[in-house]
């Protein structure tokens, strides 16, 4: 009998159908129809994902093979989906959070023209399709298809308001920066094909094949895959696209640039955990890069004044935490944080969308303040999100962040110290954002104050659901010290993920670390409260100005990479293109027209001439024949 999981192809197919209907019919369908189709297909996928999850939980994991995608010589790349614990968990996150954001978008984007509304939902559905392909693929090539697909959709959605040049530039930046990482990913795939002749997970990650690779191969492949991950998941040095990606509509930021796409890198490394566990050098690099990114982005987030930029840097920082966990061998902790982060970061982005909606497009928190009176639901849910991300028990962020900090401590207490400091910064900048936005006096114009209103139900209901998830989402991974067998997530993922942690931490130390981080975070929140409860606009000076300008990294990249490339391009344009290339092309043209102008004289139109020529040629041929035959 066929495995029941054979029908999982419906999960990505439904959003693809939604994309086709909305994309092709965007001029003919009404907004409500588009909204229902766009959200409905994702809801259907979500329903199937729940069923798949239950199947997997019941022990039915399966590699679903559909057809041979590429078949060249000995290399066979099947179009197959791998349904196991890891992918089923990601399916739930993507379709679940994705559905809520689709519902939210129906209201948030309602003022767009019908045609653009349809385009928006088409892109969103296409994104869901690509992301599902990415996590469901049973080999690196299918993953790469999804990987490129989400990059494309990210580009399309960042540049959704394509009439603004600035937004187009942000979209280009995201696309090009991602492309750098994609190239490394692609080379890693080629390397695998060269060495093993296969890219299917179940064939790559078995001992016999892993033994074929020597230490250099493993280091290079893992490093290249990691470079790919830094592009997609916005790590140093390829992180600068993510804050600029906030040019897209807010729900897009919530879905793509917080909850799902940027976690693709984490997924890839978690998926390849057996390979990574063999590469201690790469693991160290991942840990350091992750930690550096977390700290760096957190410092920038301290001084940002755009509500979405703060959240964007916070996302970069949290992704850094996840990479830290991966680098410490705590893959489960990273996946756990992906999940909880999807909840509370989507929540906060949607909350910020609600704020922006109420403020009539205003994003600068210096012009807000005191919004808690008018936007009660938004305020409460946003507060829950902040508490969750700050890591106060028993909210979800506490459990996942604690697992990461613990793994860092097990690897190296210095890493733990920096990570804890970053976690404190996280608490500080999130509550700074909360207090500046929602408490104190209103600092905007009178007109804005007049218009302040709570968002409609399609926007607040997803907020409430995500808030609930942010509260309870952590309970799937309660640490062993609190409850024996409480780490349900770790248990669930154990067949696919082999954690590789160094050293062990005693229970008393673990309690102490938790207590320490909780107390310090609470202190940080109190500090933020005293500093920002009555925020007054001030100019940044000295170091604050450096942070406000994001350490001038964008300017540095411009100076070191972008401008020299522009210069080089200009040089080639003026010298090579106009002189050499044009010279060759025009020269060929001139030579042809000159010779043909000479040959044209032969064609006089006089019959006698033709005949003379004919006779002359024939005589010539005979004479040549006569002499050459000799």
């Amino acid at each position: 009998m066929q495995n029941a999981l054979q029908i999982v192809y419906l999960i990505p197919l439904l959003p693809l159908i939604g994309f086709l209907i909305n994309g092709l019919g965007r001029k003919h369908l009404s907004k409500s129809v588009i909204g229902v189709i766009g959200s409905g297909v994702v809801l259907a996928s979500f329903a199937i994902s729940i069923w798949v999850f239950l199947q997997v939980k019941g022990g039915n994991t399966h590699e679903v093979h559909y057809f041979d995608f590429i078949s060249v010589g000995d290399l066979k790349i099947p179009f197959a989906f791998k349904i196991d614990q890891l992918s089923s968990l990601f399916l739930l996150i993507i379709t679940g959070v994705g559905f809520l954001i689709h519902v939210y978008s129906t209201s948030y984007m309602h003022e767009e023209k019908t045609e653009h509304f349809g385009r928006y939902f088409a892109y969103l559905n296409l994104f869901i399709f690509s992301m599902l392909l990415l996590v469901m693929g049973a080999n690196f090539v299918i993953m790469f298809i999804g990987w490129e697909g989400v990059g494309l959709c990210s580009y399309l959605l960042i540049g959704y308001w394509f009439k603004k040049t600035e937004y187009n530039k942000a979209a280009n930046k995201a696309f090009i920066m991602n492309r750098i990482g994609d190239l490394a990913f692609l080379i890693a795939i080629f390397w695998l094909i060269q060495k093993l002749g296969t890219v299917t997970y179940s064939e790559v990650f078995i001992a016999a094949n892993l033994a074929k690779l020597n230490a250099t191969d493993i280091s290079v492949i893992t490093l290249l895959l990691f470079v790919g991950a830094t592009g997609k998941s916005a790590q140093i040095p390829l992180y600068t696209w993510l804050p600029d990606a906030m040019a897209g509509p807010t729900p897009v930021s919530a879905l793509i640039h917080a909850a799902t796409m940027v976690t693709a890198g984490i997924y890839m490394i978690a998926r390849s955990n057996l390979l990574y566990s063999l590469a201690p050098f790469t693991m160290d690099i991942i840990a350091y890069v992750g930690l550096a990114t977390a700290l760096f982005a957190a410092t920038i987030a301290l001084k940002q004044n755009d509500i979405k930029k703060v959240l964007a840097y916070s996302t970069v920082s949290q992704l850094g935490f996840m990479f830290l966990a991966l680098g410490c061998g705590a893959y489960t902790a990273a996946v756990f944080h992906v999940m909880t982060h999807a909840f509370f970061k989507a929540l906060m982005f949607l909350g910020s969308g609600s704020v922006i909606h109420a403020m009539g497009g205003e994003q600068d928190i210096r012009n807000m303040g005191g919004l808690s009176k008018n936007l009660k639901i938004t305020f409460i849910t946003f507060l829950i999100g902040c508490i969750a991300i700050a890591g106060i028990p028993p909210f979800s962020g506490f459990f996942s962040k604690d697992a990461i900090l613990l793994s860092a401590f097990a690897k190296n207490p210095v890493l733990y110290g920096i990570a804890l400091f970053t976690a404190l910064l996280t608490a500080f900048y999130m509550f700074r954002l909360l207090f500046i936005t929602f408490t104190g006096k209103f600092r905007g114009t009178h007109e804005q104050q007049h218009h302040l209103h709570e968002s409609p139900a399609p926007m607040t209901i997803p907020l409430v659901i995500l808030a609930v998830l942010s509260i309870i989402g952590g309970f799937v991974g309660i640490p062993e010290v609190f409850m024996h067998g409480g780490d349900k997530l770790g248990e669930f993922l154990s067949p696919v993920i082999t954690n590789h942690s160094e050293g062990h931490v005693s229970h008393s130390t673990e309690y102490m670390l938790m207590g320490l981080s909780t107390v310090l975070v609470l202190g940080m929140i109190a500090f933020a409260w005293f500093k920002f409860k009555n925020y007054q606009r001030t100019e940044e000076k000295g170091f604050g100005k450096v942070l406000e300008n994001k350490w001038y990294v964008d300017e540095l990249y411009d100076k070191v990479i972008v401008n020299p490339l522009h210069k080089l391009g200009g040089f080639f344009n003026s010298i090579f293109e106009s002189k050499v290339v044009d010279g060759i092309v025009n020269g060929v043209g001139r030579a042809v027209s000159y010779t043909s102008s000479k040959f044209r004289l032969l064609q006089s139109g006089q019959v006698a001439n033709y005949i003379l020529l004919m006779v002359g040629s024939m005589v010539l041929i005979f004479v040549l024949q006569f002499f050459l035959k000799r």
Partner: protein
Amino acid sequence: MPINYYIFLSIALFAIGIVGVLTRRNAIIIFMCIELMLNAVNLLLVAFSKMHHMKALATDAATTVGTDGQLFVFFIMVVAAAEVTVGLAIIVMMYRNIHSVDVNFLNRLKH
């Protein structure tokens, strides 16, 4: 008669034909010269054919070798006659159009 005589006669006729085609402007004379060339070749064909026939007769009194060439010549003459009608018709049309049979007026082939 030795075959050489026929060959020289043929070459002479053919050369007269070529020179006529190249030098004259009257379409009818050019046409006649073309016919002259054709018949020069025809003459050569029948001469060679006859030569082969005579050679073969020396060994075998009942042979038919070489007779086919002599028959062929008649076919060529028939075809040439048909061709002449077409050629003359073209010349008549030419005269009707430009009221002359001077080929130098026909310099519009390049357009």
